[in-house]
């Protein structure tokens, strides 16, 4: 992912969407998954426990070796917020925007922006599915209502 820093931006000279620099090795498989349009968590090679978010040690067996595991990319809105004020230059131009915590089962929750057409439709328990966005040469996950098709 570090090699993408020279990629074309969507707003030359303007603010860039925040992206980690440098990328932590523990997150490399996850970020690579976003590039391919899949959600990748970690799985302990010793005990097969799923791990999210990435941590140095496995919480079950203290193992330190992990392999990537693709998970289903749909779930339910566990909670959300709608942001009306910018706290970052890139997002300041995009208010109001929604932030969703999607519960994907097996104790895994992931955060992302709400990609539904209307912020007013956002409620806890709403079925959502992952959608993948690109900005500044990087991929990001977002959450759209599950009943919207991939081309909406």
């Amino acid at each position, binding site marked *: 992912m570090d090699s993408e820093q020279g990629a074309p931006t969507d707003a030359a000279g303007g603010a860039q*969407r*925040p*992206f*980690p620099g440098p*990328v*932590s090795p*523990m*997150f490399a498989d*996850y*970020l690579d998954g976003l590039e391919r349009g899949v959600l990748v968590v970690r799985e302990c090679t010793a005990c097969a426990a799923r791990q*999210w*978010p*990435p941590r140095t040690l496995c919480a079950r067996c203290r193992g330190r070796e992990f392999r990537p595991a693709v998970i289903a990319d749909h779930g339910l809105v*566990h*909670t*959300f*917020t*709608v*942001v*009306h*004020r*910018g*706290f*970052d*230059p*890139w*997002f*300041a131009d*995009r208010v109001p*925007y929604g*932030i969703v*915590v999607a519960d994907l089962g097996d*104790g*895994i*929750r*992931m*955060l*992302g*922006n709400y990609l539904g057409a209307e912020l007013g439709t956002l*409620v*806890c*328990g709403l079925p959502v599915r992952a959608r993948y966005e690109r900005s500044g040469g*990087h991929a*990001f996950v977002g959450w759209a209502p599950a009943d919207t098709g991939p081309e909406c």
Partner: protein
Amino acid sequence: MLSGLAAGRERRERQAQITGIGESEYVRGTALSTEDLLLQAALLACADAGVEPASVDGVVVPNGKLAAESFVHALGISDLRFHAANAMGGASTAAAVMIAAAAVISGQASRVVVAAGGTQYSGGRRLSSADGSAATFSWPAQDLRTHLERPYGLTVPMQWYSLQATRWLHETGADPAGLRAVALAARDHAHSNARAWFRDRPLTAEQYDSAPYVVFPFRLYDICLESDGAAAVLVEPATASGHGGHRSVVLLGGGEGHADVPDDLVSRPDMLELGLTKVARRVFAELGLAATDVDFAQIYDCFTFVVLRQLEELGFCKRGEGSDYVLDAGIGPGSTVPVNTHGGLLAQAHIAGMNHVVEAVRQLRGDAGAAQLARADLGLVTSYGDMSAGSLLVLAAA
């Protein structure tokens, strides 16, 4: 009951007391530095305690805002025996007072200054700013912040806690009107405090309701002030005889608490759990007290929602009933257990919650001026920060 808790030589040897309090000016706009403000507050705390600053032998600085060496120079400390800095965001303050207490009870130090605050408004980095400067603050688990949150526009504490607030409203069916009640009560208390930024500036329900959402479900007046200022306390063993001529204020107990998955709200199995959930249960059981026994509560109020949740976890009411509690029993002037008699972070100033500790001491001494409660023998103070870490102090007039 109180005399039983605070009295007895054997018990006193395991307790600390707060013998001095100091506060700088609380303003929005200053030419002073964080160092200047912290040292000023520390010197005032020594003067209030009636001790020579040079006799201080311990320094605790929440979040390490200033190096202990700076206190050595400014106070003229000849033999610094103990220093510590902790890192729990806003929750560091009450926890730092407990570190100081542990130091004097164990004999590692005899006079420990704890100073908090800084130039939150004028220092060039505001959490409310759109310039992204919040990203330069030191948060726990920075990799989670930079890889999983900031790319989605989640940058500041009010956003973290808004995720808990939405879940709280959904899961418990809590009444959102409790948020407004906390905001109005803070302003009501502020009228009795000479240092309060919002003194003589009342807030009406209509003004609250017509203010815009900043981060749903938080409106403008659900969010605390950003301030410049510092406050400090001097902690000594409970067995030390006071020199300041004040009523003695004893730390009966306290401690810190960290929720499950303490650095990640998103993945916390019970997203509503707080650090205070654990420490309150522990401390009240140790003391044989309940939260409802106190005469006042100074509760860390970075956001109105955080007050409601802490009231619930302290045990004033059940989870989901915080709004009912503040709407029915009340927390304003004249209520059974008034909350934040100085106006708090919402209406007095954001002094990292050390202003809550100072106000608790004033109440217990009987020196709180127009805000003085008729009965103030037992009180509690909470601090709150980062991903809902918590700390708690229980104090009594002895």
